[in-house]
Structure formats: structure tokens, C-alpha cells
């Protein structure tokens, strides 16, 4: 199986504080990964490094079998196979339609195709009625749904999700979970998701990385981690002793 991401000794520091130190991490095609860990563990930073938004201080990163050199044409080319739903789901000024069509616009897809895809994606998220609505006026949950629709519109090979259901009520969250599973099985989309919801991790993840203080202290299949966690900190976290 070809690895989509390979990280070796990747570190990142902010003002001399090391917030990320990944000895080795591999992500394979077509799987669903979950990253767990306490606040400030470096989960978002890890997603940002993998999606090439944050430059690592040292180490080696391979994406789609290519070593990342950070030159700008490579960045755009690699990123065009990825999409991300961030923790804050930032919306551009303008309508919901504009936001969802953005990724297709910058790829210069023909207008009719854009309309068709935007319509499909909004329908999928139950947000069709909001197409002409100013995106910055949406509620937190609506915004998160539009952010997901916007990410799906570009049909990414890899989908990064940073707590994608944190603002959603249980029913919507469940819908999203179903949908994540669906695109994963239908389009073989690789999903890398940060979540604080242990049940959600258990329902979705095939593999889990447990992050602590910037380091991966545990990695394994969902079953392994929940039933046979090796590290004491992981066990405590999973039992909710925090």
C-alpha cells in the first residue's frame, strides 16, 4: 500500500517551545484516521503541517510519495488534492454559494459544472435553502456544514477535518459521520480527523494517533487503542480522568 503521507522527525516550535515532534508517522490511502489528544497537544499544528500550511522546523515530509520542498508551485499542486475543514470554519464575505464554489472557481472549472457540484454538495449537507445567504451570518453549526460542503466540492483525495462536528447537534453530527464513511468507501477518500468525541472516534476511526505534548505516544487500530492501550496517559485519557 502506497503511503500518502510520511513524516520523519518532524518538529515545530513556537518561541523556543516545541509543540510538535513526530518521530515517524505514516498515512495510507483510503483509510480513516483519528487524532486524539488533550487541548494544546498539537493536533491542529499536525494537520497544518500535513496540509502544508505551516512549515516544519526540521525533519522530512513526503506527500503522495514526493518530498516536500515548499516551492510554491509544488504546494499548490499538492494542496489541490486536499481539503480541510478547520476548527473555526472561516467563511469568505459573500454568499454561501460563492464560498462553496470557491475551490472550483480557482481551479477554473466551467460555470455549469460549478453550479451542478455546488448544488449537490449543499443538498448533501441539507443547506440548499441557504445558497444566497450571506455566509458570515450563518450560525456555528450551519457554518460547519457549509465548510464541509465547500471541502467536498473539490473532490479531495485527502480530507482533513479539525473537530468537524463540534458545533453540530447529535442528529446532524450523525449525518456527517455517515457521510464521512460514505465518501471514504465510495471515492476512497482518505480522512484524517481530529475529534474530542471519543464515541465518534470509535465509530469512525480505523486507525488512531494519540498525541501528547506534540508527540505521538500511541498509534494503533481503533480496537487496540480502546481495549489495550499501552501508555498509561492514553488509558487515563480514554477513561476520562482529565
Amino acid at each position, binding site marked *: 500500500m502506497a503511503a500518502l503521507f510520511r513524516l520523519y522527525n518532524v518538529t515545530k516550535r513556537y518561541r523556543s517551545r516545541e509543540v510538535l515532534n513526530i518521530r515517524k508517522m505514516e498515512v495510507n490511502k483510503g483509510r480513516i484516521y483519528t487524532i486524539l489528544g488533550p487541548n494544546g497537544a498539537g493536533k491542529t499544528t499536525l494537520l497544518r503541517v500535513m496540509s502544508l500550511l505551516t512549515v516544519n522546523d526540521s525533519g522530512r515530509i513526503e506527500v503522495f510519495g514526493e518530498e516536500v520542498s515548499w516551492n510554491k508551485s509544488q504546494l499548490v499542486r499538492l*494542496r489541490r488534492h486536499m481539503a480541510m475543514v*478547520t476548527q473555526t470554519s*472561516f467563511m469568505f464575505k459573500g*454568499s454561501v454559494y460563492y464560498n462553496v464554489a470557491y475551490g472550483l472557481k480557482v481551479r477554473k472549472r466551467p460555470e455549469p459544472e460549478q453550479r451542478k457540484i455546488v448544488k449537490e454538495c449543499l443538498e448533501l449537507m441539507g443547506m440548499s435553502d441557504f445558497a444566497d445567504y450571506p455566509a*458570515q451570518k450563518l450560525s456555528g453549526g450551519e457554518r460547519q456544514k457549509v465548510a464541509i460542503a465547500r471541502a467536498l466540492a473539490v473532490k479531495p483525495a485527502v480530507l482533513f477535518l479539525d473537530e468537524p462536528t463540534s458545533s453540530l447537534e447529535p442528529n446532524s453530527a450523525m449525518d456527517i459521520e455517515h457521510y464521512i464513511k460514505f465518501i471514504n468507501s465510495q471515492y476512497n477518500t482518505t480522512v484524517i480527523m481530529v475529534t474530542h468525541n471519543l464515541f465518534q472516534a470509535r465509530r469512525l476511526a480505523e486507525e488512531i494517533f494519540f498525541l501528547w505534548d506534540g508527540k505521538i505516544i500511541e498509534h494503533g487500530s481503533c480496537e487496540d487503542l480502546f481495549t489495550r492501550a499501552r501508555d498509561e496517559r492514553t488509558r487515563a485519557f480514554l477513561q476520562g480522568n482529565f
Partner: protein
Amino acid sequence: MAVFYQGIKEGLLLIMSLDRELIQITLLSLQVSFSALIIAAILGIPLGSVLALKRIPGRKIFLNIIYTLMGLPPVLAGLIVFLFLSNRGPLGQLQLLFTPAAMVIAQVCLALPIVCGLTARAVMAQPQEVYDTAAMLGATRRQAAWTIIKESSLGIVAALTTALGRLMAEVGAVMMVGGNIAGKTRVLTTSIVLETRMGNDSRAIAIGMILLLIAFLTMLIILKLEKRTFKDGGTIQVI
């Protein structure tokens, strides 16, 4: 107080009588200031955006110089342009001194730092998320930069408004390089100076009213423009 009353009365009469000289002066004022604004916008918006987004060496110093020039006294701008355009100056051969073109050049010097500086600030005030979101949706650097500039549109409109206000209101620069020649380079603000000196206080007030009226109309247009921007969110409601 009588002079104000008289001035306002005469002003209304003057405006309604469509005094030919006054119309000519008003049109020249508008022509000079809007030309200067358009040139300042064409140069200043891209320059300000580049300064905000590109990590070019000397950027901080350059920005500080621009912020300082935002307070450039109009007479000083006029003096510098005067020295350049005067017969002994480096551009003396162009014979531009005491023409509307010279007035436009002097006003561009005043407006450019304002447009450029305030555009840079508006763009720099955008959150990192704008770039991140654009980049993760596949935008190239150029496309992302354009998106960030569009997100700053409200601030850029404010920059243009501020610059226009300054241009319409200033006397020093247009006086220095225009010379206040009747029928040629006389504008509203220089007329006020002249009429006051000649003791025509009420006529001066009348012209002042026209300036206010223009400011009012411009503001209406800007509000219309801004409404289109505000429509899509971003307004803070305070109850």
C-alpha cells in the same frame, strides 16, 4: 452673525442662479480631485496590497515612511511639486506649472500615501484564516492574494473616502502649483481664500456651502457603495 445669514441666503441664490463662473470652478475642483484620486487608487491600492502581503526587504521602513507621509502638509506637497515644475526645476521644460495638470500631480502626492497606507492596514488586518482557507481550497498565491484584497474592500473604500475628503478640502497644494488663476486654475477652496481677502464674505460662504454640498453628495454615493459591501455581513449590531 449677519454675515452668515447673508452668506447662506446669497449662497442659495448663487447656486440656484447657476452662476457660470461658479459652475466652472466647481467642475474644475471635481475634475482635479477625482483625477488625482483615480491615479492614487490605481497606484496606491496595488502598492499597499503588495506591502501588506509580500515579505520584501525594507518593507517596515517603507510602510513607516508612507504612514508619515499621510500627514504631509498640503503646502509642503505643493512646494515640492512647485520646485520640480518651476522653470529652473528638473521638470521645468514640461511647462506644467499653473495648469490643472500640476494641481493633479500635487494632489496625487497627498492622496497616494493615504490610499497606500490605509489599504496596507486594511489588508494586514485580515485574519490568517482568509489565506489558509483560500490556500486549502486550492488557490494559487495570486488568487489567494486577490481574495484577501476583496475581503478588505470595506477598508479600501474607507481609504479612498479619506483621501477624497482631504483632496476636496485642501488649499495649500492647489494654490502653490495652480496659482488660483481665474477661469484656468481657480477651484472652490482657492476661491474662498480670494473672496474672503477681497471682503466678499458672503460669496465666500456661498462657495463653502457648495463644498459642503459636494461632500454630502459624495458621502451619499459612498454609502450606496458600502451598502453593497455591508449587505454580505460584517456589520456589528449594538443594541
